[in-house]
Structures are given as structure tokens and as C-alpha cells.
């Protein structure tokens, strides 16, 4: 079970990264990036690193995403 | 006096603490930040002096924050190369003093930005000092980030039209190179289980199993630090960033920050030479060639620049090329020359940027044709500029000469006469563009009234320029002191090669 879970999480990470890379809508990309951060957080919790997972959830997935959203709000949402 | 152990902790923490207190000082008195920053750097300079004296008297020494023995805690290690903190303090001090007047002329530089500007400068200097004295790989990365982040912001702080873009370009390349360095640190940690540089070296040397990770880590470190040092072809961020920054910042960035990439390379070499895992001839050759290309290319581009600051920025690429080439030669003479050039080029480039900054401050112009005849209007500043120009070309008896002499000797010692030629003739190319500058400043008629009417800058700007200029001369005449100072460090670095 653990290996399957591993693989699924990692596959999700790669897929999310690809979506972030290809999405033309920056807002969508940012949200997907946030979910990517949460998946990482899950992975790390599972790897025996709860401290890091907590930091990633609060900072990586939370505040970083908010900052991206603010920046997108102040500039433009579409990637040309 | 210098044997007091805590100087090493103080030299790192003082600028950082000073930076944290600068906005608070500004709350109490709006005009205090420059003087507060100056006081901080004065104390830091005292500590740095003690450290340099100690390393001169005793050789390398360590400080253990928290009292934890080396591989378990972070080790601060002060060796001969760390003596660069002396130069960092000196130039930092001068740049802050210079800024106290200079920043008044910047567009968008409202007074409420001022405390943060000085805090950034202090953080930048503190980051560099920490980078230079730490003996721990991850700590190296942390200080690298402090100095890089503050560096990016300092580029943008002047409010030039392209400043923010230049800063972003710098930030992007700098951040990627930081990630590479962190990746490499991860590899090294994974192979050895430790982060202490000396310990990594020893355990890497005793490594069993595949060496591929170590090789890749070396490549990552080299690419990362070479980007920070702005060597061709990873130099693209430098010209705009250094030209768009306020002049005292350019002095710090061009004189010091890029050098920390070189210090990083020296640390990398220390690990890999010491571990003796593989022959570094390939890397050395790559660095020699890249250095040579940087020398020629930087000088060549500089010739065609009209903007004085852009010209100086390209000349930095050229000079870093000398240093990297000297490192790649891997002979005693070559590495000594390269190491001393770290110090001397810092002095020279700071002189040049401060002098140019003074001229821009007074006239508002920055291209060669606009600045015609400024030499007569601002004689002292122009003399400083000329001294800097002569030094950077490497004409004896100025500071630039001995380093180039040593690196050339190193080229012949390493049986690479081609690079000796590249070096000497690269210096000629450099001379060509400084001749253009001197020609325009002294031997042409002014075309702007501002230039003719320009007065000498106030003492707070003139003093740093002149002090640094005279140091360019003094370091040339007393060139033996830095050379003999750095020699034990270089010999230790290269000892694993000679067997």
C-alpha cells in the first residue's frame, strides 16, 4: 500500500508541475501550484518530516500562493 | 588583543544586528541611518582588523558558535582567503559614507526609503562577511542567500528606468544558481553525511562507491558560483545590474559581491583538491578558457560602450576573467595572483565606481560624450578616476600590476603561454577603453554647461574616493604584503596537487 501511495503522490506532483508549466492562465497555475505544495506537505509528513510538512503547508502552499495571487492581481492573469 | 576569540562571531553578527536596528534608529531620528550604518561598519572593521591580524600571526583558526564541536555544529573558520572581510569592511564603510550624500540625488529616493537602503547595504556586507568566514557548506548557502537577496534589491533601489528589470534578471539567474548550489550541497551531504567543509573533504576522500554524484555536485557548484561571479557565458545579468544600481552600490556589487562567487569557487576547490577523488584538469581547462574568453569579451564590449558605468561593468567581467583564469591555472603563482586580485580589483573597481558616481552626482550625465572636459572641472575626482584606470590596466606600480604579473607567471609555470599572452593583451584592450575615457575627460572641450560649472563633490564623497584611490597606489607599492599574506593559504590549497 505504501509504495502505491508513494507512486501516486509522486505522479500527482509531476502532473501538477506539468500543469503549472503549461497553463496559460496564471491564476490557475498558481492554484495548482498551491495544491502541488500541499501534496509535497503530505509526502513529507509521510516521510517522517512533520516539521517541514507544517512549514511547507503554511509557507509553500499558503503564503507563497497568496503572494502569487496578489502579484497576478496587480499585473495580468493571462500568459501570452 | 586579537587573540580574543569572539571577534569572529562579532564580525558576522554586528552588521546583521545593525541592519535590524537601522529602521528602529530611523524612527528615533530620520537622518540617523547613514551614521548608524557607519558606526556599525566601524565596529565591524575593528573586528575584521583583529581577525586579519590574528590569521597573519597564527594562521587559520576556528570559532564554534554554541560550543559544538566541528561536524555537529556550525564552524566559523577564518583562513587567509577570509581576509577578504577586511576589504569588505573598508569598501562597505566608504560606500556608506559616500551614500550619505549621493542618495539625495536619486530619482524616487524619498527619505522614507533611506533607512531600508542602509539596512540593505549592511545586510549585503554582513552576508558577504558570513560567506567568507563560514566553514560549513549549508551556512555558506544561507549567507549566500543573504548577500544575493540584498544584492538584487540594491540594484533596484536607485529607481533608474531599467533598474527593476536589471534587478529581476540578476535575481532570476542568481536564484537559479543558488538552487544549483543547494542541490550540490544536497549531493555532498548525501554522500558524506556531514556539512562541515573540512569533514566533507576528508570523508569524500575516503569515499567508497560511485563517484558520479561527487562529479555532478562539482559541476553544479562550479556552474552556480561561476554564475555568481559573472563569467562568460553566464555573465548576461551583470552589465545592466551594475550599471543601473546607484554608484556606491555598484562599487559594492562590482568590487565585492561578484568576488564572493570566486571565494565560493576557492572553497569548492578546497574540497575537491583535498578529497583527491579525481583529476580536475578538465575543469581547470574549462575555467581557463572561460576566463580567457571573459577577459577578451568583457574588454571588447567595454570598448564600444558610451555609458561610463556600463563600461566599468563590462570591465568587471574582464577582471573576473583574470581571477578565474588564475584559479584554473592551478599553479602557485597563478592562484596567488588570482587571490590577490580579488582584493586589489575590489579596491580599484570601488575607486572607479565612486569617482564616476561623484561625477554623475555633480553633472547628471553619464555618457562619454556628455562628460567631455569634466577632468578640468573636477580635478581631484578625475585624478582618482585616472589612478583607478591605470591600476585596472595593470600598469606598475599600481595595485593591478602585481596580480597580473603573478597570473602571467603562473601561465608560464603551468606551460600555458597562450594564456599569458591573452592576459597581457587583454590588459591592452582594457587600456583602450580607459584611454577613451581619459581622452574625453581631459582632452576634449565640454559640450554641456553643467560640466563646465561642476564643482568638486563634498567631502563625504570625495574622501572615500581619494582614500580608495591612494590605496590603489599603496597596494601597488606594498604589493608584497598581500602576496606573502595569502601565500600559505594558496600553498595549503594546492598542497594535495604537488603530492
Amino acid at each position, binding site marked *: 500500500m505504501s509504495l502505491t501511495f508513494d507512486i501516486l503522490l509522486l505522479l500527482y*506532483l509531476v502532473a501538477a508541475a506539468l500543469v503549472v508549466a503549461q497553463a496559460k492562465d496564471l491564476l490557475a497555475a498558481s492554484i495548482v501550484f498551491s495544491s502541488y505544495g500541499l501534496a509535497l506537505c503530505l509526502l513529507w509528513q509521510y516521510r517522517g518530516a512533520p516539521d517541514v510538512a507544517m512549514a511547507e503547508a503554511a509557507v509553500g502552499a499558503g503564503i*507563497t500562493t497568496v503572494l502569487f495571487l496578489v502579484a497576478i492581481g496587480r499585473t495580468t492573469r493571462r500568459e501570452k | 588583543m586579537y587573540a580574543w576569540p569572539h571577534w569572529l562571531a562579532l564580525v558576522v553578527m554586528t552588521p546583521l544586528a545593525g541592519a535590524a536596528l537601522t529602521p528602529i534608529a530611523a524612527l528615533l531620528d530620520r537622518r540617523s541611518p547613514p551614521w548608524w550604518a557607519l558606526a556599525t561598519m566601524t565596529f565591524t572593521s575593528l573586528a575584521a582588523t583583529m581577525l586579519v591580524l590574528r590569521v597573519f600571526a597564527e594562521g587559520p583558526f576556528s570559532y564554534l558558535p554554541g560550543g559544538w564541536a566541528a561536524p555537529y555544529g556550525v564552524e566559523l573558520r577564518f583562513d587567509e582567503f577570509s581576509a577578504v572581510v577586511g576589504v569588505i569592511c573598508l569598501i562597505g564603510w566608504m560606500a556608506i559614507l559616500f551614500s550619505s550624500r549621493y542618495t539625495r540625488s536619486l530619482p524616487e529616493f524619498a527619505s522614507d526609503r533611506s533607512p531600508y537602503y542602509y539596512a540593505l547595504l549592511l545586510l549585503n556586507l554582513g552576508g558577504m562577511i558570513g560567506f567568507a568566514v563560514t566553514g560549513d557548506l549549508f551556512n555558506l548557502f544561507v549567507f549566500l542567500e543573504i548577500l544575493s537577496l540584498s544584492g538584487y534589491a540594491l540594484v533596484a533601489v536607485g529607481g533608474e528606468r531599467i533598474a527593476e528589470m536589471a534587478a529581476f534578471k540578476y535575481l532570476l539567474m542568481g536564484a537559479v544558481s543558488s538552487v544549483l548550489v543547494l542541490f550540490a550541497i544536497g549531493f555532498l551531504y548525501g554522500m558524506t553525511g556531514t556539512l562541515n567543509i573540512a569533514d566533507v573533504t576528508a570523508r569524500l576522500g575516503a569515499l567508497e562507491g560511485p563517484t558520479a554524484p561527487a562529479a555532478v555536485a562539482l559541476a553544479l557548484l562550479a556552474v552556480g558560483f561561476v554564475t555568481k561571479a559573472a563569467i562568460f557565458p553566464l555573465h548576461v545579468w551583470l552589465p545592466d545590474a551594475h550599471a543601473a544600481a546607484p554608484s556606491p552600490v555598484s562599487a559594492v556589487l562590482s568590487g565585492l559581491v561578484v568576488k564572493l562567487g570566486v571565494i565560493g569557487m576557492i572553497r569548492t576547490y578546497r574540497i575537491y583538491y583535498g578529497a583527491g577523488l579525481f583529476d580536475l584538469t578538465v575543469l581547470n581547462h574549462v575555467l581557463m578558457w572561460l576566463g580567457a574568453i571573459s577577459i577578451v569579451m568583457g574588454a571588447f564590449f567595454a570598448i564600444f560602450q558610451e555609458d561610463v558605468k556600463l563600461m566599468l561593468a563590462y570591465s568587471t567581467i574582464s577582471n573576473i576573467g583574470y581571477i578565474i583564469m588564475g584559479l584554473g591555472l592551478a599553479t602557485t603563482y597563478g592562484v596567488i595572483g588570482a587571490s590577490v586580485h580579488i582584493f586589489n580589483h575590489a579596491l580599484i573597481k570601488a575607486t572607479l565606481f565612486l569617482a564616476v558616481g561623484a561625477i554623475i552626482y555633480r553633472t547628471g550625465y553619464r555618457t562619454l560624450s556628455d562628460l567631455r572636459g569634466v577632468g578640468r572641472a573636477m580635478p581631484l575626482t578625475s585624478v582618482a578616476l585616472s589612478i583607478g584606470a591605470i591600476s585596472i590596466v595593470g600598469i606598475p606600480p599600481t595595485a593591478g600590476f602585481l596580480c597580473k604579473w603573478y597570473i602571467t607567471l603562473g601561465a608560464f609555470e603551468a606551460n600555458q603561454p597562450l594564456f599569458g599572452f591573452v592576459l597581457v593583451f587583454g590588459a591592452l584592450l582594457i587600456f583602450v577603453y580607459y584611454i577613451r575615457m581619459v581622452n574625453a575627460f581631459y582632452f576634449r572641450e565640454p559640450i554641456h554647461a553643467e560640466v563646465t560649472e561642476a564643482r568638486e563633490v563634498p567631502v563625504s564623497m570625495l574622501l572615500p574616493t581619494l582614500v580608495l584611490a591612494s590605496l590603489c597606489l599603496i597596494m601597488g607599492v606594498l604589493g608584497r604584503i598581500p602576496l606573502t599574506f595569502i601565500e600559505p593559504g594558496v600553498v595549503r590549497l594546492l598542497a594535495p596537487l604537488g603530492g
Partner: protein
Amino acid sequence: MIVMLWHNIDYVASVVLFSIGLYVVIAKENLIKKFLGLNIMETAVFAFIIALGMVEDGRPPIMTGDAQGPFASPLPQTLVLTGIVVAVSTTALALTLIIRIFRRFGTIEANELREME
């Protein structure tokens, strides 16, 4: 063999994520996108470092009285904690610069900016 590969999958995944991030940084013109890519690169390296410190059936390195090993290595975790802070700092600065660039030039596409320069 396959089991071994599955055991090492974390490293490989890190490299894949790193490469995706690098690709975004190099190939995309949008500055915000570039920075999303950089964040992916950074997290990939964090994942790599965390994976280094992991042990088979490891527990978090918290030494409450009854805890029994094996424990995951605490050192990589502290490194990554610091790394996350560094990443968010860099991001904050970069986004500020991007906002300023947009204010000045009206675009954040690198190719258009190059033309304007």
C-alpha cells in the same frame, strides 16, 4: 529490481521536477511563470534533501520517552526548513519587482520587455 527502482523513486522524481522547473524558467517568457518554475525547482531540491534523510519505516525525529527508532535524520529537515524560508523570501522580492516592472512597462513578458529596453 523494480522494487529497488521504486525505493529510489524519490530521487528520480526530484530530478524530474527539477527539470520541469528548469524548463519553465528557461523557456517561458512570462516573468510570473518563470518564477513558478523556479519555485518548482526549489521544492524539487527540498524533496531531494528530505529523501536523503529518510529511513525505511522511519519515524519523525522526536524523542518522546517511548519513541523507538529508526528515526529519520533531523539534519536534512532543518536544512529544508531554512530552504523554505529562503524560497519564500526570494519569491516575495521577485514578485515585488514584477509588479514594479508591470507598472513601468505595462507588460511582464520577457520578449516584449527586451524590445522596450
